[in-house]
């Protein structure tokens, strides 16, 4: 998608991103083994779009999020925010660019500094990145707190004086305060109770609609992803195995892993018994990954050709799959 009139502009482009963690080897001269947490991922998120990134634990989605934010340095690949290569930026320039790249974390309690009030937490990005001072800044803080549904009466409360749902709202407020180009959300509702989840999801949907937010939404909870996301990418062991518009993915999943994942979700309806695609065994370690398709050892549809490098094919408009068989 190119910049131009009438065409969607990509807010975020992830280009062949790789994150390998070397393990210290006892034998110093041998090439160390690596944990291949993210192994060549390419994704695009259009402006105003919400891309869902799903996968189970160990698939690399959280590591990918941290690479995008350059909280850890990727071993290879590029991250482009509005066509600017974040991975090539020097530290000070990167720090300034953070105005446009924010994150909402999973644990609402651990992600707030216990010594800062809600207002102080939200004020910090404004102080660092905007020229607002004094009363204007305080007014803006109140505005943002209102936007996330926290009344001005709560501005001076500390995290231990707020409920779980309120803390997550403060988290969200901090992330949107500077109107960033992209917000990465790492499992923002997983640590919340069932009843709070709905409110936060609706809040995120509303902010997206009203402020035109672009989200990279990382989650293992497929039903939330279904609700919020325009497009969805499925990750397994460090690579993207399938990508499609949300409705398309959930109605016509192609990759065996996606199908297995969808069939495991317990639907709140006792009469819906999805056809289970069962994967044998457990997720292998991301250290010694066999060549070819990573699902090979567990996939009921595996064939000899699956040992070859996996082609990425487009099976429907906007719907790509990394599989030999389907």
């Amino acid at each position: 998608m190119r910049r131009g009139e009438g065409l969607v502009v990509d807010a975020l482009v992830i280009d062949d991103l790789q994150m390998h963690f070397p393990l210290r080897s006892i034998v110093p001269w041998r090439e160390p083994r690596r944990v291949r947490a993210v192994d060549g991922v390419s994704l695009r998120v259009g402006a105003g779009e919400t891309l869902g990134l799903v996968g189970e634990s160990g698939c690399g989605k959280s590591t990918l999020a941290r690479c995008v934010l350059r909280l850890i340095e990727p071993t290879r690949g590029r991250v482009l925010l509005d066509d600017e290569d974040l991975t090539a930026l020097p530290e000070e320039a990167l720090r300034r660019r953070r105005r446009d790249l924010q994150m909402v974390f999973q644990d609402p309690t651990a992600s707030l500094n216990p010594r800062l009030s809600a207002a102080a937490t939200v004020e910090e990005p404004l102080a660092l990145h905007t020229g607002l001072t004094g009363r204007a800044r305080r007014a803006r803080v109140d505005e943002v707190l209102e936007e996330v549904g926290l009344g001005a009466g709560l501005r001076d409360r500390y995290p231990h004086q707020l409920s779980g749902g309120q803390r997550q709202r403060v988290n969200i407020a901090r992330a949107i305060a500077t109107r960033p180009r992209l917000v990465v959300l790492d499992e923002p509702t997983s640590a919340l109770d069932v009843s709070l989840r709905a409110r936060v999801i609706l809040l995120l949907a509303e902010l997206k609609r009203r402020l035109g937010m672009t989200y990279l939404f990382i989650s293992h909870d497929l039903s939330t992803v279904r609700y919020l996301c325009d497009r969805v990418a499925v990750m397994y062991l460090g690579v993207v195995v399938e990508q499609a518009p949300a409705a398309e993915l959930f109605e016509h999943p192609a990759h065996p892993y996606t199908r297995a994942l969808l069939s495991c979700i317990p639907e709140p309806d006792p009469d819906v018994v999805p056809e289970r695609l069962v994967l044998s065994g457990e997720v292998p370690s991301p250290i010694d990954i066999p060549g070819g398709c990573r699902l090979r050892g567990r996939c009921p549809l595996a064939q000899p050709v699956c040992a070859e490098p996996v082609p990425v094919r487009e099976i429907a408009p906007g719907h790509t799959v990394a599989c030999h068989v389907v």
Partner: protein
Amino acid sequence: MSTLVSVSADETPARRSAAALLWRRLSRNVVSLAALGLLAAVALAAVAAPVIMSYDPDAPDADRALEPPGYRHWLGTDLYGRDQLTRIVYAGRVDLLVALEATAIALSLGAVLGAVSGYRGGWVDQVLMRIIDTVQAFPSFILAMGIAAALGNRMTNIVVAIAITHVPIYARLIRGEMLRIREMEYAEAARTVGNRQRRIIFYHLLPNCFPPVVVQATLAMGFAILTVAALSYIGLGIRPPTSEWGAMTAEGASYIVSGEWWIFLFPGLAIMATVLAFNLLGDALRDVLDPRMKGV
């Protein structure tokens, strides 16, 4: 929209502030209350000394030399006829002041070293910790003695000597906390928001490392008093005529045999009671601060 915006301020009752909670739990325990009371009394006496003490601690009065405790001099007098009670209270100022200053300096320096070391890791951590190890390898009292002897008996030098021996404790404690806290999500959040590293360490993380340090500092104050008293006892500490508990105890030692027991006993009791009070307070704080208030 109403369900979203109507987060009323009543949703969670505003829980009591941390300080109020701390006070409540402290005041439940009789022992800690007693310790707090004693310390408060000592501190108050020390501060108000010139006002409440009617005698001059330094003025000799030959007529009243070596008087046992009695109506006019509640704790007796020493060889020069100086009122012991007055001297003990004035000495308290010296001892407390030295302990306070030494602890403050050690804490500040140790905090900076520990925080930087813990957050940065790598070779910075290694180098700083080896320096700390070196200091810690010396028996602390010997080290204090050495520094005091080298620099001279002035009060400032004694403070420095004690402070140096205490730095490693705080450095390690804060480094340990920092290692734990830097993995927390709010440390990451401080980065994503765009803070510079220095601000992350000192504004966000370091203040959250303090609860265990407060406990340690309270206990260390007691230890600092013991150190300055011991230094003075062997003659390396505060010089006369400035009164100081350890020096007074040393003076009194030579009178035990001749029967003037009050000269060494009361300063000794003063040391003991104050150090005990600090220890009890430190223990109480540890109980209170430990699991309930993690992160506050």
